[in-house]
């Protein structure tokens, strides 16, 4: 559905995108991760037809994103990373403008979204908080029920509750067969929603991974705090992979075999038990660091 084929953009300052290849299947949710300035938004601008590639191409539904920019918008919903609205309108007037330009007949989806994100659409745009503007942007992107959604850092500015509402919305759209590309530096929302993920740094994709595979392969790290030295000795003898011991806290890495882990800790006096919920993040740190060394 979305294809980037050797997409290259060279800016005069030497930055840009270098030979990006990426393919998002129909019905897939694709995460696009990277630190600030890595080229996430630049990639998305190509998909929206705002900038022309130096070489290579971006296509959506087999239409060239630069040459057929207007045509593509019929099936695309877009949430920009930067939120700037027309001054002098309120939220509803702005949404009406966009629904008019999108030739929308019904306001049902729009009204349901407004209800869902709970904000006052009649607020003048210049009086809106960042989170509120983000909500208006989300409604604008989803309101014409587009087949393809391109979301640039969609949860920035939203409070945790609304981030949840948003993730639910993404999962719903996914179950309805939508193709979604979203950029983020929030690992959690990517992990919860995406099928695959690409990691970009300095204008190049340094990894593409299947999130489900990744989760299966990923080691979990448990922080087990025990009562005394004897317990630590017992854990050491149990055959578990222990990565670190500090005082009475033992870090145990578990890959798949949870029963073994449970049996072993059942034999000791456990005072506290925590999991570290950083799997993807740790993986990405690993990628970033490796790149840094190179």
């Amino acid at each position, binding site marked *: 559905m979305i294809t980037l084929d050797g997409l290259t953009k060279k800016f005069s300052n030497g930055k840009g995108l270098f030979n990006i290849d990426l393919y998002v299947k129909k019905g897939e949710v694709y995460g696009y991760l990277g630190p600030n300035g890595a080229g996430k938004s630049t990639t998305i*601008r190509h998909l*929206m*037809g*705002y*900038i*022309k590639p130096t070489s290579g191409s971006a296509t959506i539904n087999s239409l060239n994103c630069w040459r057929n*920019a*207007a*045509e593509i*918008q*019929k099936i*695309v*919903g*877009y949430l*920009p990373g*930067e*939120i*700037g*609205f*027309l*001054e*002098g*309108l309120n939220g509803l*007037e*702005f949404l*009406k*403008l*966009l*629904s*008019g*330009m*999108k*030739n929308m007949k019904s306001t049902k989806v729009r009204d349901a979204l407004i209800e869902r994100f709970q904000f006052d659409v009649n607020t003048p745009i210049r009086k809106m908080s960042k989170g509120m503007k983000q909500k208006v*942007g989300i409604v*604008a*992107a989803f309101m014409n029920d587009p087949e393809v959604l391109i979301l640039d850092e969609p949860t920035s500015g939203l409070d945790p509750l609304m981030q949840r509402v948003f993730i639910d919305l993404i999962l719903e759209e996914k179950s309805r067969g939508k193709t979604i590309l979203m950029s983020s530096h929030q690992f959690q929302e990517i992990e919860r929603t995406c099928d695959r993920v690409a990691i970009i740094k300095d204008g190049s994709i340094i990894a593409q991974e299947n999130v489900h595979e990744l989760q299966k392969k990923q080691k979990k790290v448990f922080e087990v705090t025990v009562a005394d030295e004897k317990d630590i000795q017992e854990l050491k003898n149990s055959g578990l992979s222990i990565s670190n011991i500090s005082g009475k806290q033992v870090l145990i890495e578990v890959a798949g075999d949870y029963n073994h882990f449970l049996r072993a800790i059942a034999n000791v006096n456990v005072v506290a038990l925590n999991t570290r919920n950083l799997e993807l993040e740790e993986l990405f740190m690993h990628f970033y660091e490796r790149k840094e060394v190179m």
Partner: protein
Amino acid sequence: MSMPLFKAMFKIHGKNIFSYAFGAVMYQWLIIWIYPSIAKSSGMNDLLKSMPASIQRAFGLQSGFEKIGGFLAGEFYGLLFVLILIIFTVMISIQLISRLIDNTSMAYLLSTPVSRSKIVITQISMLLFGLFVICGFTAVGGLMGISFLIKNPIIDEQAFIQLNLIGFLLFMVVGGYSFLISCSMNDEKKAVGLATGLTVVFFALNLVSKLSEKLSWMKNITIFSLFNPQEIMKGNVAILPISMGLFLSAVLLFGISIVVFKNRDLPL
């Protein structure tokens, strides 16, 4: 042309347009209202005649104040009309495109199936609509003011309409290059600076070219020399070629604006 966009733009700029239009007409009426007292005092005409010819030419005072049309051409169209429209035209041209690029709201407009060309054409229509309203107001308002406020006025109505028409066409050209600047630049402030600077230079060249014979060649490098209110009122100007020239230049500039905007990278 996109109607929903035009309506939204009207919502944003409409108030401004009508303020300029009403403001211009009010000022016009004020001048019409004081005309009888000035026309009666022969001292004023003598004072004008005593000024150096170059100053009279530069500020459009050479025909004296014997006719209301000439008075209005000199006192309103010679300076204030031009200043009001310079401010309006430059500001709205920049706000219609460059501001939307600068504050990235253009991203939303372009995320709809309305093409870039259609968006620019809509914005150009808004600019032309604004100019038309202001010049229409001054044309109709001026004639109304004269017939209400002056007893037995002697006025060449056709020339007065032509005066407003040439004013409209002149500012179509000013709007044309301001729009081109607006379409080419990312930074709103720089765009305002460039468009204002260029216009001020054109305006000053016209003023200076009239002050001295030696500098009169300067009238060839400014468009403002084509707008000569007093001469138009006297019927000494060939309206058709000037109108056509201004109109075609404006169309060309708007055409280039569309092409530039269509083919450029937008930092949205």
